[in-house]
């Protein structure tokens, strides 16, 4: 089960990256970027998967004794929370940049912003 999830996450990451590198339009690059991030988050969660484990919430199902062999690994889920927020932050900032660049040059093609070179 987790191998399928892992493969999908890797594939998502690669597609996202391909999107970033090949698309000329900045907004499409940002979309590629968010794709890349979601792939990453799926990867993080799959890493924490334990066969036969349930959500790491202590309730009637898990009871309070030897919980460790019933639940899924909670740490990646905590980390993914932070990763998602970072992804959000970066995408928001990139959109702001895209907006500003459009205001400056009325074009969203990355190739038009080549003043700084050599």
């Amino acid at each position, binding site marked *: 089960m987790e191998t399928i999830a892992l493969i999908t996450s890797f594939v998502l990451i690669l597609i996202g990256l391909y999107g970033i*590198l090949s698309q000329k339009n*900045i907004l499409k690059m940002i979309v590629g970027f968010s794709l890349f991030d979601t792939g990453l988050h799926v990867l993080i969660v799959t890493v924490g998967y334990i066969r036969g484990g349930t959500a790491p919430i202590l309730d009637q199902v898990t009871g309070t004794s030897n919980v460790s062999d019933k639940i899924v690994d909670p740490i990646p889920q905590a980390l993914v929370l932070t990763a998602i927020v970072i992804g959000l932050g*970066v995408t928001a900032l990139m959109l702001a940049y895209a907006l500003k660049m459009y205001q400056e040059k009325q074009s969203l093609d990355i190739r038009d912003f080549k003043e700084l070179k050599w």
Partner: protein
Amino acid sequence: MDFISPINVVAVSLGAAFFMGLLGKKAQTVSYILLLGALLFNTIVSGQWLYGLATNIIDAQQVYTAGFRPPFSINLLMGLDEAVITTLVNIVGLLGAIYMASGLHKKGSGSQVVYLVLIMSLNVIVLSRDLFNIFVFLEVGSIATAGLIIMQKGINAVSAGFKYMLATGIIASIMLIGVIFIYRFTGTLNLDFVMQSHPVLKQGALISSFLILMAILLELKPFPANGWALDVYESAHPGISAMLSSAVATANLFVLYKFTGMAGESLMYYISLIGLVTFVGSNLLGINQTNARRMLGYSSIGQIGLLVAIIGLVPHSNANFKLIFIGILTGHYFAKAGLFWIAGIVKAQNIKEWSVLRNRPVLLFLFLTFVLALTGFPPFPSFWGKWQLVMGLSQQGQIAAVIAILVGSFFEVVYLLRWAGYSIKLEPGKLPEVKLSQFIPVILFGLGIYATGYFVSQATNFGDTINYIPLVVVAILLVVDFLPAYIKNSLSILATGWFAYLLIPGQDTLKLVFTVIFLVGGILTLIPGFHVKGKRAGFYPSAMLMFGGLALLIEAENMLQFFFAWEIMTLGSYFLIIRGKESMVHAFSYMLFSVGGAYLILLGFGMVSVGNTGLSLNLLSQIKFYPVLAMALLAVGFMTKTASLGLHIWLPGAHGEAESDVSPMVSAILLKAGVFGLVLLMLAAGGEYNNYQGLFYTLGWIGALTALVGNLGAVFQEDAKRLLAYSSIGQLGYILFAFSIMSQLGWLTGFTYTINHFMFKAILFLSVGGIVMRLGTHNMYEMGGLIKKMPFSFIAVLIGIITLAGIPPLSGFSGKWLFYNAVIMKGWYFQGAIIFFAGTIAFLYCFKLIYSIFLGQLKDNHRNVKELPFWYLLPQYILILGIMVFSAKPDLILKPLGTALAAAFPSNPLIWEGTKALSQLGYWDATTIMIVIGTMFVILLIWLMLMSRKAQNVKQFNIVYAGERPERPELTHVSHNIYAGYNKALGFLVAPGITGFWNYATNLVESIGNFTRRIYSGNGQSYAIHLVSYIVVVFIIYISSI
């Protein structure tokens, strides 16, 4: 005193940040004060810890969060390293905030919050021991930087910001993948526990640790994949780029240093390789830069590359890794921040417009301090760092790495010194108004760099043996630079006298000769300075820097002292030479050759120290590691200073264009420093029975050919000072040849030539310099007939050329006689013949010099030229006295020299019977010759006076002119191209072959640089592609090697 726990840095900063957010737009000044308060608090905390840990009142302390022990919660460690790094970061943060006061004010509380959070995140990165936590705060730092980049308005900043976001986004994700898989394979996120579980062993963990390290390396902008960083340096607000290049880079470097624990041996090797490639590559590209900030970007990337290489190369275990790292880091840290701040003040994009700094001498001085600190010159920390690095690496036998580092730093010297040259010499425009808040941080960092320089020097081994008195004298002269020239002149003469008083008594004879030349010569060449009116700013500190360097050179016992003195002397002479009107280009080429030579010497010392402990100079005699190569390197290094064949093209320009009292200093005294080095080298090579016969044979040939080329070059010169400069090359060729004969007679010849060259070259340059000052022109064909106006300088020049040509009564002949005996006894007949041929050519240009200046027709506009000022004539006549004494009683100097040399060169010494010198071949009695010639001359003079009736004085046009009336003095004075026939015969020897070679070499380097920098095409996406492909390439190389 109780130590505030480091966690408060986070708490206070965030509290302040959130509070500022609350204040909103209105209360700008309140939030700015709050910002400064928070930054001050951070600095105090880290400063307190640094003080505590340095004086080990307290030892390293773990700070636990959330009340649990590390593997279960995040912990921060405050050790000595962390304390140092955090203090550095906080200081530059505080001063940066002060510098950007106006910028931050205008932008409102938003940017102040972002700035404060950036500094806080850097602190946490350094302190935190948890992988994921470091990742999070790295992200906080990069977003904050992206935010601060936009502070600068304009399309450049926005596009640079976007490229930055793209790159850091990808890097962050790579790191996140690495962190997650490290957790998956090692089961923990805490750095110490990860290291305990040795990630290198398990395959998966190996790759994930590779990914993490790769991310950190990319964060440090490795060479091909750092286009995005360059754009940011160029377009961001200078204050921000200062932050980037000093604070952010320092923190990231420390993180890399922390993570190397989990990298295996081969990965460390690749890290050092990446570092070296970055250092050499970015410095090579820096050469063609004309935009100041972009050039600073290249240089900071280069320096960071060097630091990465150090982390890779030098095993963390050995003691002085920390010293090297701190030395070079502080050098880069202070200099880069300072330079970016000055860039902010000067606001000029093109490096040529930086001569604006000349309106503000203090700012210019600081600018030069930072440039020199970057290039690794003595009093600054990076000099000690680089010295310790080269020594350490050569001890480990990594000579290739040392060569790469030296080549890289040579490229850096090329473009930085060119920039310094522009700022000193070009026409100054109007300097924009400098706000106080911008000025204080630059001054504080200037002082900081000198202080750290001193501390780092005390920490290097043998560093404490360095004598700092000369530098103190220079500092005093700098402070007192507003005084009129004659006070400063007497001050510096007193100081040189004091050095001489310290050094001369009790010095062994060989060194005594050089001490007298350096210091007494220094006093003599300083005397003309009394003639100068006005302030003559900047002259006396550089003069004392040179003479101080020379004094230190003599009293140096170990290699470090020698190299320290060598660099100080080069520095001083550079600032002296560049004072001439058009001498910017020549001073630059002089500096390149000297720095190249200095690096060869450094490499040589490195190879000498292999297999030996300690640094004392007599290690030169027990070289175990490729002795001939080491000796050759050192010899070539010294020969750049004595301008031997191939390395001589800088001398005519440098000495020809220098000021009238600088050229005697530089050519009569400074060239002897190279000779002093060679003497030490050859003595250490084992005197007569050394095993470097092949090397000294080639040195002999080089000396002979230099003499020929130098003298031939002088014959066809039209510029008086260039003629003398070429003749110095020739004379130095003699000296090099004489010393490489490696026999007692050879060395006596060498010493005689050295003393003679010092005396007559000083006389010639002083008088010609004075004449050039009086007449305002260098060209000899515009002079003529000055004997009637300047009889005294005529006599001086006459005695000068008699000694130069080696005509019997005077001491020049002693050199020639000794030379003849040495050559015949040694058996180097053909070189001897070449040198003799060069000697006769010397006679040619001596006649040209004295004829075209003093004899012939007096020109119209020189009719009421006055005699040379008294201050110019006094040293000349003291030197003439010296020549007379040395010619009448040569045994005064040669006898003690002979006994001193007997130790190193026992076979066939020079025997003295009273004043008569007997060698195996012939005999020579200077005093009798002097008496015989003197009396004969007088008798014949009386005979002529008796015979001739009262001779009637006539004016200058009463000459046999085939019955015609001479038109004008200019037309009846033949001196332009006077040796046309000779030129037709032997002119081909003087073709500028060697200058052609050096031009070719520079063009080659520049074209490579130009070609490779094309990869930064400006397209953000291509930068991202470079990034990803860089990761893949390094991965493939890394995996294939395991």
